[in-house]
């Protein structure tokens, strides 16, 4: 009897969960349908933006982004000042909320999936997954009407934020391209008798490292740029556009005759890197135990143990590294500068699906891309209190430091920072440099393509395990690549990398055909 009852309860519970499952998918379907409908209806209304935005109903819009202090002192003042500017153009008010870095992804994920109030969110996760789950509002038809300046400013880059034909985000102005470079201590480089301009390729770097080893045996000539990784993590950066799990394309692949998806670990360039890493490791240029190192490069520089690293570089890297490591660092671009979908769309402003008035939200975001007062307010806070301006350059007022300032946001989350002031520690003409850096970068043949990983989830997990085992060791030259590299690729094959290649090739061909 008791058993029967238990069975009945279990049955009931399972049915309930099944039903719940159904309900879930239905509701997400309906949100999709809803948003499709709204986009359709918006199309007919488009063109009459002022009446939509000044409809007399002041709506409160919740704006969420990450920061290192969740409640800075001047939050209320900034919010009020922002609302004043917004009030002139849009009948809306913003409510600001900063979430600390460490908790940001967890909390925004929960907010997006629970459908609680949220109107503008700064996304640092992949738009594909959020878009796929129906958590984001497609802004294709609204963006040109309600956020024309944002669209205009980011036009070249906005392509990377499309998924499945829908636009889900506005990329921010920052270093949208990426490039690898050689970063080293300026004082020691000079002491060794070299100039930054002389270093153009890896042979030049080797010469410098060799000299450094002789003159400064107490320093590690080269350290890894990231934790738990090899010193050559970024060696092949710019040669491939790696989409997922090492699968990607050669950056020089010409799209006119179709694109070939490859395993980037099984290429001549990767092999060349592996051999060089092994050679340099044998010569003692690398920091020992790089692959298990958990001390950041900044700390290693600060403790006076390191000379250089090979990593990501963009305008301003040198100042940034100098500030964070307490040693003067010079940054020398080496690799090619490239622009890919992932270098653009890994952070952007987006409108969540639950937003009640996406038009107004977009119009507010538009201010961040066009209005210099609004931009300065959002980035630096209240003029005279949080920052002062001289010759168009903003800096802290006397007696205020980065610890005591009441407000401050990073350039890369401020929409279009170039409409506002530059910061005193930025390199000279920082915005021209950034724009040039972005505009001259080589586009990946897959630029604008977003891979749908649904079919290969298991393979990706399996491959992550294999790469965890080999990648850092190979890129640090800890083992002879003539045996390790084939072994690595062997294991990748048995983990199913060919399935990913095949699946991605199919999607790439489709994408190319529709382009």
């Amino acid at each position, binding site marked *: 009897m008791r058993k029967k009852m238990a069975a009945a*309860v279990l049955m009931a519970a399972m049915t309930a969960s099944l039903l719940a499952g159904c309900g879930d998918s239905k509701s997400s379907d309906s949100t999709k349908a809803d948003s499709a409908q709204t986009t359709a209806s918006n199309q007919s209304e488009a063109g009459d933006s002022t009446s939509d935005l000044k409809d007399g109903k002041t709506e409160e819009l919740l704006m969420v982004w990450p920061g*290192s202090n969740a409640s800075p002192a001047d939050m209320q003042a900034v919010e009020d000042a922002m609302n004043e500017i917004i009030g002139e153009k849009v009948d809306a008010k913003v409510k600001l909320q900063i979430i600390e870095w460490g908790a940001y992804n967890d909390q925004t994920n929960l907010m997006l999936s629970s459908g609680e109030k949220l109107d503008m969110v700064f996304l640092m996760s992949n738009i594909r997954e959020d878009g796929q789950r129906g958590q984001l509002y497609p802004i294709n038809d609204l963006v040109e009407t309600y956020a024309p300046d944002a669209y205009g400013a980011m036009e070249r880059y906005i392509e990377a934020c499309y998924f499945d034909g829908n636009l889900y985000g506005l990329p921010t102005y920052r270093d949208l391209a990426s490039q690898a470079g050689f970063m080293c201590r300026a004082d020691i480089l000079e002491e060794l008798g070299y100039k930054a301009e002389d270093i153009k390729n890896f042979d030049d770097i080797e010469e410098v490292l060799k000299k450094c080893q002789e003159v400064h045996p107490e320093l590690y000539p080269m350290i890894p740029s990231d934790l738990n990784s090899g010193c050559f993590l970024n060696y092949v950066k710019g040669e491939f556009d790696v989409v997922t799990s090492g699968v990607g394309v050669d950056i020089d692949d010409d799209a006119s005759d179709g694109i070939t998806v490859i395993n980037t670990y099984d290429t001549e360039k990767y092999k060349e890197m592996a051999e060089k890493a092994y050679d340099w490791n044998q010569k003692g240029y690398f920091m020992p135990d790089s692959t298990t190192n958990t001390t950041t490069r900044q700390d290693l520089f600060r403790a006076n143990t390191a000379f250089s690293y090979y990593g990501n570089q963009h305008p301003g890297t040198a100042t940034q590294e100098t500030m*964070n490591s307490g040693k003067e660092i010079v940054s020398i671009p080496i690799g090619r500068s490239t622009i890919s979908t992932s270098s653009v769309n*890994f952070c952007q402003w987006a409108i969540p699906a639950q937003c009640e008035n996406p038009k107004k939200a977009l119009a507010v975001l538009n201010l961040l891309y066009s209005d210099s007062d609004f931009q300065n307010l959002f980035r630096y806070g209240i003029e005279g209190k949080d920052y002062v301006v001289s010759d168009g350059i903003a800096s802290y007022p006397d007696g205020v430091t980065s610890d005591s300032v009441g407000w401050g946001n*990073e350039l890369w989350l401020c929409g279009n920072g170039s409409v506002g002031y530059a910061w005193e520690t930025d390199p000279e003409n920082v915005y021209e440099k950034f724009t040039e850096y972005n505009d001259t970068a080589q586009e990946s043949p897959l630029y604008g393509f977003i891979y749908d990983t649904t079919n290969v989830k298991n393979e990706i997990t399996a491959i992550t395990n294999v790469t965890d085992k080999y990648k850092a060791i190979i890129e640090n030259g800890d083992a002879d690549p003539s045996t390790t590299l084939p072994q690595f690729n062997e294991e990748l094959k048995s983990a199913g990398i060919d399935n990913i290649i095949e699946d991605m090739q199919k999607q790439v061909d489709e994408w190319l055909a529709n382009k």
Partner: protein
Amino acid sequence: MVGKQERRYQRMITVVLALISLIMVIPLVLLVVASFTSNNEIVLHGYSFFPKELSLEAYRYIWNERAQVFHAYGITILVTAIGTTIGVMMTLLYAYVLAHEKFPGKTFLAFYLFFTMLFNGGLVPTYIMYTRYLHMKNTIPALIIPGLLMSAFNVILTRTYIQSNVPAALSEAAKIDGATEFQVFRKVVLPMCKPIIATVGLFAGLGYWNDWTNGLYYITDTNKFSIQQLLNNMIKNIEFLSKNANSNINLASVGGGIPQETVRMAIAIVGLLPILIVFPFVQKYFVKGISIGAVKG
């Protein structure tokens, strides 16, 4: 007279126990020492019991946040006090009913309890329930109720304790003397349950003290941060900043100059200290309660 063999046996036990406790204490000492070491020293030479260069920079970093740290301590103490009290009361009542031979619906209640040990709604549904239907986001109850208020395991522990330590005859005798059900519970059963109350209270209290997940999910208002959440956020922020310092984003004005290695150690100590102080006072009950409650499932 204690025999020679007995004395030798005692001595051996002492040595073994001393070794075991050393294994526990040494890392703790290292933790304390590391938190007072200078960060450069750790980067250069690794952790050591006898650092050459002492420094208070890690504590200075925490001290800079002292207003928030003390406030968060207050929140944690409040939450721990309220949560433990209510939690222990509910646990005792539930367990008492289950220990009762003739209580109607006992089978169902036992199953209902057991069911929660095996199945739960999952994170997102739970989150939606608490935020959208119970409106608990950014409230103190959000730190108390989700996942912590009652644990099925504690109820079973308590039930077993009551069954084996509070003779039914005693309750019956009280009833014959004219006590009501509630009086029996309060005057006869409760006083005999002190060890298990201490045990369950300690479990619950530790649970509340160490919890940061509720804060991570439900609290975004810095005025309601608990100490563990605050400390956890500090660590995660440092981690995030150092991990992403190399990615495309330009973190020009943040992350520089934090003594990363030592701050982690100092944070652990700040979180640990109050528990270290409280533990000696409750541990005598602790051992008794858990050993008795665990026998006879």
